């Protein structure tokens, strides 16, 4: 049975960063209203809501988010809460595709800075407890993956310097992109020198400027069936493929510790579903918890050859850092600044990624807007992860219904 592709008709998000004075409810309210307003529909048109957050239970003692949202909207429609925005989004797609719902809201929020002193401990909830007991930190696995990668591909000497430089340039590129994103947590440029100095200071291969920050924020979108989308919008963005995959929670137990199998599987399934080739994808939002993950994603998702992503990045960044050029094709990655500069309020992050691709495909990204062959891109992809590659989600979005 051929399922009809649902469409995104409106998006909204708050600025990411520290929202000292605001409750999570007020953040999701802002993002949700923005998404609704951009479509011309009202909350009463919603058939259901899908929400996401990782830690509200821990950070804000909110354990039944659906009730708060019901009270906020004064609605009694079905609502479900998941962990990541992508998970909520995928479930929403299933709801619409099954024909059960016509119009749904997908919303994500996170308030990580409310528990600044213990949020890094809380992040360990996304790892297996034994790694935590052995002293693992949210950053440690990234460094172990990097070391494993370097060892596997025998990268040393001058090549290794280039790899480290390529990683630094990812951060510089993402910060540069964020300068054009007024909603980003850090909309300021940084230099390669900043990145390298931070690494030296911590005596580690990856430093402060290699990792995404801790953020507050919310994001939302309105998803509709193709018929409803056509009623409400002249320029809907279609979800051509949406897929997920899983891997062992214990990083040391995984068969491959130089990449994420889940990402590869999810991408494979999403491409099949969308009936597009990877070379058709023009823009992508990657889950760059660290600069390393942006590099690894290029390989896991199939854009770069195994063991070669750093070289593709290094070569692409020799002249400009605006896009990657891989085998003669242009790929724009993390146009909103990525998790690194846009921010990473876990439950809302995927929403901001979809927000960016939606805006770019519609030609509404203002100064961030990129063009391919003289027009806004046609096809984009979003990659979101839960944990350290434990769950992977891929959404392929396009201007055409497919």
């Amino acid at each position, binding site marked *: 049975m051929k399922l009809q592709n649902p469409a995104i008709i409106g998006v909204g998000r708050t600025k990411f960063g520290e929202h000292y004075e605001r409750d999570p409810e007020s953040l999701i309210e802002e993002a949700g209203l923005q998404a609704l307003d951009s479509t011309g529909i009202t909350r009463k048109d919603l058939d259901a809501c899908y929400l996401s957050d990782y830690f509200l239970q821990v950070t804000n003692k909110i354990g039944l988010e659906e009730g708060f949202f019901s009270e906020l909207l004064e609605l009694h429609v079905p609502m479900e809460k998941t962990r990541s925005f992508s998970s909520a989004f995928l479930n929403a797609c299933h709801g619409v595709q099954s024909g059960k719902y016509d119009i749904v809201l997908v919303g994500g929020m996170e308030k990580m800075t409310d528990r600044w002193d213990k949020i890094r401990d809380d992040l360990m909830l996304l790892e297996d407890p034994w790694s935590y007991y*052995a002293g693992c*930190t949210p950053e440690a696995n990234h460094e*172990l993956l990097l070391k494993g990668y370097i060892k596997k591909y025998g990268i040393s000497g001058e090549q290794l310097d280039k790899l480290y430089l390529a990683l630094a340039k990812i951060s510089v590129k993402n910060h540069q992109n964020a300068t054009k994103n007024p909603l980003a947590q850090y909309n300021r440029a940084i230099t390669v020198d900043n990145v390298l100095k931070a690494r030296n200071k911590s*005596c580690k291969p990856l430093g402060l400027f290699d990792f995404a920050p801790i953020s507050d924020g919310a994001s939302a979108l309105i998803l509709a069936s193709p018929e409803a989308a056509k009623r409400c919008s002249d320029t809907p963005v279609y979800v051509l493929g949406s897929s997920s995959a899983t891997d062992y929670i*214990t990083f040391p137990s995984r068969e491959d510790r130089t990449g994420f199998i889940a990402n590869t599987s999810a991408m494979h399934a999403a491409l099949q579903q969308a009936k597009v080739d990877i070379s058709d994808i023009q823009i992508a939002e990657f889950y760059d918890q660290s600069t390393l993950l942006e590099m690894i994603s290029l390989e896991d998702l199939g854009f770069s050859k195994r063991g070669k992503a750093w070289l593709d990045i290094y070569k692409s960044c020799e002249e400009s850092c605006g896009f990657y050029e891989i085998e003669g094709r242009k790929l724009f990655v993390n146009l909103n600044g990525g998790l690194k500069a846009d921010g990473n309020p876990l439950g809302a992050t995927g929403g901001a990624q979809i927000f960016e691709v939606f805006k770019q495909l519609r030609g509404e990204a203002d100064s961030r807007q990129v063009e391919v062959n003289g027009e806004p891109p046609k096809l984009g992809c979003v990659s979101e992860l839960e944990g350290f590659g434990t769950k992977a989600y891929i959404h392929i979005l396009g201007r055409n219904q497919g």
Partner: protein
Amino acid sequence: MSSEPIERRVSYIGDRLKGSQCPICGKEYFRGKNYCGKCGRKSFGKMKDIDFFYDQGNLEVSTLVSQPTNRFVKMGSYIYGIVAFHNGKTRVPGRLTDILIEDCKIDLSCFDGKNVVPRFRRRYSVGESDIIPTISLAFTLADGYYPHQKYEIKKPMREYETPGIVGYGVYTSKFRIKEGNMERSVPFIDEDAVTAAVEAGRMALIHSGVDRSLIGKVYVGSESNPYAVNPIASKVAQVLKLGKEEKMDGVQSVDAIDTEFACKAATSMFKDASSLVYYPKTNTAYAMAIGADNAQAAPRNELGGELDHFVGFGGSAFIFGMQDVIAEIEGWYSCTSDTPDFWRRDLQPYPRHGGRFTGEPAYFKHVLKACRTLMEQLNLQVEDVDYFVPHQPNIGFPVKVARQLGFKEEQYELGLKVAKFGNVYSGSSPIGLAAVLDVAKPDERVVLVSYGSGAGSDAYSFITTSQIVEKRQRQKFTVRHQIENENLEYVNYTTYRRLKHGL
């Protein structure tokens, strides 16, 4: 707040590094698993229990952690990585311990690919009222201070008529503080009396080669148990898997008990352990007596702070039995009086002492009486004794008491180790005994006299057997190794206090 059920489950697996192995394809897992992912249903219910505790791992990749999560903050910076066992059949996360990293100045490249040994340690900091979490996902380099040694069960060759020592082990940490003519053992921040007791017991098992399931009782003497209520001995029994274990309920057929009598808490139990294995109806082949302390002392500028010049850290364990004995017990004598020369009240962190009165009316009176009475009972002259090992709270007392008894330097110097480890409280005279047994020839007589404040002394006479020589080959981690090892690390007073205070 700790969760008691979680602590039980985590320590049951993590302290011993329990795993499972598929009997069909050989695939291995850390932690128990009811079936093999490869063989599926065929393997259901057939998975074999394995432990990685005595195995050597390989640190495949590692990284520096300088901003740990909250419970690890007191550890400072440390190395974290992935450890592979059995050529990569299983991989576990691990923390390298026993490394002091100052200002994150450390060459990381020297760790990857190194062989490592699992160590039983505290897991991280918790509240003062919480259960103390432990784990063996802490590792040290196999080519460092603590060598990898296999535990191999040897079939007993000979039955003896009198009970005696079958095997023994000593554990002191790799850190030392050196002041004047004295070096003292300093625990790493994740060590305490419990971890020292386990390590000493592990060494005794390795040396004795006895089947751990045949150990019927374990005694742990200590005055620095981090718990007021909760035995060290139960932890030792679990980690070292003493007594037969029922897989169904995880309960071991072993009796475990803690004893306390200042520095003689362990030596007092030597006779109990010997009697137990000698008593024909008990079916107790072996009994283990451990003395372990993270010897407490107030800081120097506080009342009782004089002790801070002498206290050490470590443990010793002796296994008693009737088979393959290396030193038979010839006789014993103990004496007691109510002489409170050193004490620690409940809820107080540090002991107090009677100053000058810890000498004549306490230490000397009891040690002299116990030694003289034993020698009288056994009809021994000073010349009949090859080695004399007294309790050693400092360098002066044991030398003076030995001379008063008429012993010559060559009789007492070998067993005098306080200048190398400090006063290890319950482990003090037993470590001296171990140092003697490390080098003694067959048919030599060793007289041990302990002293515990409060006060009392236990005197023992041991006669070594011919088997002492052959068993010696099994132990690399000798007292001498722990004194002369090139990897010893010396710390200053501030670091010593921090490490000793622990997590």
